[in-house]
């Protein structure tokens, strides 16, 4: 009889202890999940700010409000930015950013932990891409080039006068557009096969977002997959004089390890 009474008390105590522990662990697990989710969001926003800022610096533009605007789009206050560093090294613009944000808890607040401070760091740098197998008259395949509205997108160096075309895949094969009018140098109108194209007689850089006055939709080149350069030595009195054809994509940005900043 005494043993049974002792057993009864044991069950009650065990149940209450188990229940309390179970509930606390569940609450802790759920709050941890939400904190991890917030940490993921903060890291994503920080990386976006780093990439966007590096791209801006590459184009020579300065916009002090850019990091705050990007964070606000992600639903984070501008005050989240704790440090923001930039530098120019080995021909690359580098950006490193640190952000901080309090993540509110759902259940742990009853245990006195109202929020957890989250931190994220990210760094990005600009770089130049030089595609392989560059020959006159052949499609040069790029790691798809996305044009932006600032700065130059690619450059061309050539021994002879040349025409430049941008291309994209379509259901009917590659489609092309003459982008000579987007060069940063003077061009000459030349007729080839009854059509008029822009011949270029200097090494040049191209900003594809620039409109060409004489062409409708000429600013509607968002994505470029191929570049094709045709040479025409007869188009120029003085040739550009580079040692070989070289196309370089200028507006690439990538994330780097913050320690490599």
């Amino acid at each position, binding site marked *: 009889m005494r043993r*049974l009474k002792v057993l009864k008390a044991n069950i009650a105590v065990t149940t209450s202890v188990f229940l309390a522990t179970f509930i606390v662990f*569940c609450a802790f697990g759920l709050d941890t999940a939400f904190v991890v989710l917030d940490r993921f969001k903060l890291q994503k926003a920080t990386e976006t700010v780093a990439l966007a800022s590096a791209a801006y610096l590459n184009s020579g533009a300065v916009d002090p409000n850019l990091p705050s605007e990007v964070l606000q789009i992600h639903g984070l206050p501008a005050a989240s930015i704790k440090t923001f560093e930039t530098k120019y090294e080995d021909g690359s613009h580098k950006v490193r950013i640190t952000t901080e944000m309090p993540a509110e808890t759902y259940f742990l607040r009853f245990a006195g932990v109202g929020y957890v401070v989250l931190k994220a760091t990210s760094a990005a740098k600009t770089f130049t891409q030089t595609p392989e197998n560059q020959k006159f*008259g052949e499609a040069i395949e790029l790691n798809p080039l996305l044009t932006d509205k600032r700065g130059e997108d690619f450059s061309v160096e050539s021994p002879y006068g040349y025409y430049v075309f941008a291309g994209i895949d379509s259901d009917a094969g590659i*489609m092309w*557009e003459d982008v000579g009018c987007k060069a940063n140098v003077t061009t000459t109108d030349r007729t080839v096969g009854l059509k008029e194209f822009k011949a270029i007689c200097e090494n040049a850089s191209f900003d594809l977002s620039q409109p060409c006055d004489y062409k409708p939709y000429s600013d509607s080149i968002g*994505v470029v997959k191929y570049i094709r350069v045709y040479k025409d030595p007869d188009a120029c009195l003085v040739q550009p004089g580079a040692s070989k054809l070289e196309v370089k994509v200028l507006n690439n940005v990538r994330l780097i390890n913050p320690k490599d900043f």
Partner: protein
Amino acid sequence: MQKLFSPYLKSIGSPDAKAVSRISKPLRRLSAQHLVEFILFFPFFLAVLGILMDFSMALYSNYKFNLALHQSINMISMENKLQSDVTEIADRIKNTTRASMKNSKAIYADTVETGIVFMGDMTAVTASYNYITAFTLVNAFFPALPEKFFFKTAIIVNDAILRPNYYSITNSDLEYIFSTLSQEDEPEPTTPQTPESGEGGA
């Protein structure tokens, strides 16, 4: 218990019948206590289980929602967009996100809405998603669950991804037009050899 055993014990006329009867009373009390404890504990257990399931489903759906949005933007960015406009591209992002969520068994996929915010050079694709909680019974005792979770996300993309493209010359036309211009590399100019530069030079 006693009723169960008594007829049997009576029938065999055993002197142990009273002893069994004495033991069965505490056993009966103990069984009742288990039942009461179980009834007291079970609603708590159900509530905690319900909250856990709802939170887990909400988190899972939010993860799938973000993943689906990323996938649709990636997909759209690889398309040529030769015959499109921005509104159509935005609609395609929304529909692809919904389809991708449905495909991965995330619920309430139809509540996904997308928007496009142009901010100069960059564009933000914003999207929202509602997860309506199922186990709201617990809120009658303890306001642990909101009526719905409202998830919002934004992906900043290059404006170029959403712009329609304009290309007008087909590959065969371009090759035909420029077939008149030779694209062969011109031979390297050879430097004339002088007797001094040769091996047998005096």
